[in-house]
């Protein structure tokens, strides 16, 4: 009996150690669960840009192993070219941009040409063509019952410096193929989506004496003044239902984090430190925040309950961790890993969790900044710069795949997704 107890305890101990890894940090590579798929362009005019976007969508979803050849053929009928018989699915498509953008897709089984799904899409604007393609791949993903990838349909909103003291706020699709300036003139910064449906943004305007936060409906242009503060005023995060926001304000000249009830406009001070507290992000079901503070003499990631004073350090590596984002209990932060006073520095991204001191490196080279989680927390958007170019990157945390797209706006100030 005594021996049996020892064996059970030993097994229990072993099992805890074996599986006691943070699920967030586990890299899944379930290639077997991905579908092999080929794209077959049935458009009257072969369009490489359309093909490239469809291919990117399939790749970054993490659910497909796409054939990277741009095949052409007839969109109608059951015929599957012999070269594509080794695939599981063939997605036939036709894009027509003579007037607006019209897309027809047909998903066929590669083995016998059986049609699994067919749908047509149209939008009056030619420029919005990428959104049709994202929607189509999202639908194909859903038809095959893969986990949600609706983040590919979302707008990215970002601010860029145009000239000293001037900026613009722009919208884009995630590949940066579609771009539109929605606010220009003056200095307008820190755009942040105000709701899950992406109908409004918060942004900071500098046209008045002190920085002022506005909420703008991006469809009808209606604008509300939310709050203002001397020093700085930034909407750093929005609660899932949009009823509360985290603000960085400095009413007495020191940057601290406040939580505002949007309906009542009442504010609650969350941090109170004489140094720098910025970049508040909700974690742990919005009961706590993570934020960047220099309370140890250098910028680092800390965590604090919204309703109590206790503050704890989240990250125990790096001496300059100056920006972070959070989703659920996942935290991504950028860390400056070189110390050039002038010129480009190496910034890398790391993934952490609010309940653990473990971190997982996500990038290894270059300048990687502005990390932002997708709504579901499965993807991280970031900006990658090297000596010659800037790219917008995406890391699929589940499949560990990453993609980079060219990004021609040089001086990005802030970005949200």
């Amino acid at each position, binding site marked *: 009996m005594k021996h049996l107890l020892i064996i059970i305890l030993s097994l229990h101990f072993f099992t805890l150690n074996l599986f006691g890894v943070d699920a967030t940090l586990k890299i899944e590579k379930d290639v077997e669960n991905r579908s092999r798929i080929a794209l077959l362009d049935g458009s009257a005019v072969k369009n490489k840009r359309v093909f490239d976007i469809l291919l990117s969508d399939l790749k970054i979803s993490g659910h497909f192993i796409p054939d990277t050849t741009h095949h052409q053929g007839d969109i109608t009928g059951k015929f599957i070219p012999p070269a594509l018989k080794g695939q599981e699915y063939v997605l036939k498509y036709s894009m027509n941009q003579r007037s607006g953008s019209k897309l027809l897709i047909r998903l066929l089984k590669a083995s016998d040409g059986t049609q699994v799904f067919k749908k047509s899409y149209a939008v009056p604007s030619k420029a919005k063509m990428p959104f049709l393609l994202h929607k189509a791949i999202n639908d194909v993903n859903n038809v095959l019952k893969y986990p949600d990838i609706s983040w590919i349909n979302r707008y990215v909103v970002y601010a860029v410096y145009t000239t000293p003291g001037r900026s613009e706020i722009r919208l884009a699709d995630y590949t940066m193929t579609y771009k539109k300036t929605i606010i220009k003139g003056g200095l307008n910064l820190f755009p942040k989506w105000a709701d899950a449906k992406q109908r409004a943004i918060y942004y900071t305007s500098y046209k008045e004496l002190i920085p002022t936060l506005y909420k703008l409906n991006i469809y009808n242009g209606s604008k509300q003044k939310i709050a203002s503060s001397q020093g*700085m005023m930034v909407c750093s995060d929005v609660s899932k239902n949009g009823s509360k926001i985290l603000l960085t304000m400095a009413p007495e000249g020191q940057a601290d984090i406040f939580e505002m009830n949007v309906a009542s406009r009442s504010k609650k001070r969350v941090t109170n430190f004489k140094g720098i507290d910025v*970049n508040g992000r909700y974690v742990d079901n919005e009961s706590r925040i993570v934020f960047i503070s220099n309370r140890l003499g250098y910028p680092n990631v800390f965590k604090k309950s919204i309703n109590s004073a206790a503050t704890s350090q989240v990250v125990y590596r790096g001496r300059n961790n100056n920006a972070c984002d959070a989703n659920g209990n996942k935290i991504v932060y950028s860390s400056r890993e070189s110390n050039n*006073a002038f010129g480009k520095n190496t910034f890398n991204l790391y993934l952490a969790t609010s309940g653990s001191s473990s971190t997982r490196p996500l990038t290894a080279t270059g300048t990687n900044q502005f990390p932002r989680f997708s709504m579901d927390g499965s993807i991280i958007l970031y900006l990658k710069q090297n000596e010659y170019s800037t790219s917008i990157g995406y890391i699929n945390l589940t499949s560990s795949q990453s993609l980079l797209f060219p990004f021609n706006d040089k001086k990005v100030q802030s970005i949200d997704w």
Partner: protein
Amino acid sequence: MTHKLLTLTAVISLFLSGCGQTAPNLNGSNNNISDANAISGDTVSIDESNYGNESEGNYNSSTDGFRSVYFDFGDYAISSNMENNMNNNIKVAMAASSKIKIEGNCDEFGTDEYNYALGLKRAKAVKDSLVSQGLTSGKTVMVSFGESSPVCTEPNDSCYDRNRRVDIRLVK
């Protein structure tokens, strides 16, 4: 015996002094440096005590009689080099009839919100200095512009120095 010793010492001294190398005459033609062409012109002489005063003279992005205050990389303490500028600023501030806007600025190397907070700490350092010398706190308003408003956009050190600054102006 003593006499002999003194004589020997004198002889050795004369011998040793006779072995001494002639000091080169760097200004004359008897320069014993054979590769004279390697030295062309004089070396530079840098007086670093002028740091900051130079910006006071040539660089100033403040208005209404105020002088900009410049900061070291990543720092928000007012250095002693800026004393002249701050002495000027308190005089102008005390005489001002309207509110004073103190604007914190950074170079381009910071990111996101943290850089704006750093600019604000610089503005706060200047405000605290002015208030400690008698200016009413309510007469000031601070705004951080982070890296958004560089006065210089060339990629060199002196340019970056000019962007890490606090500008002061009257609210009109």
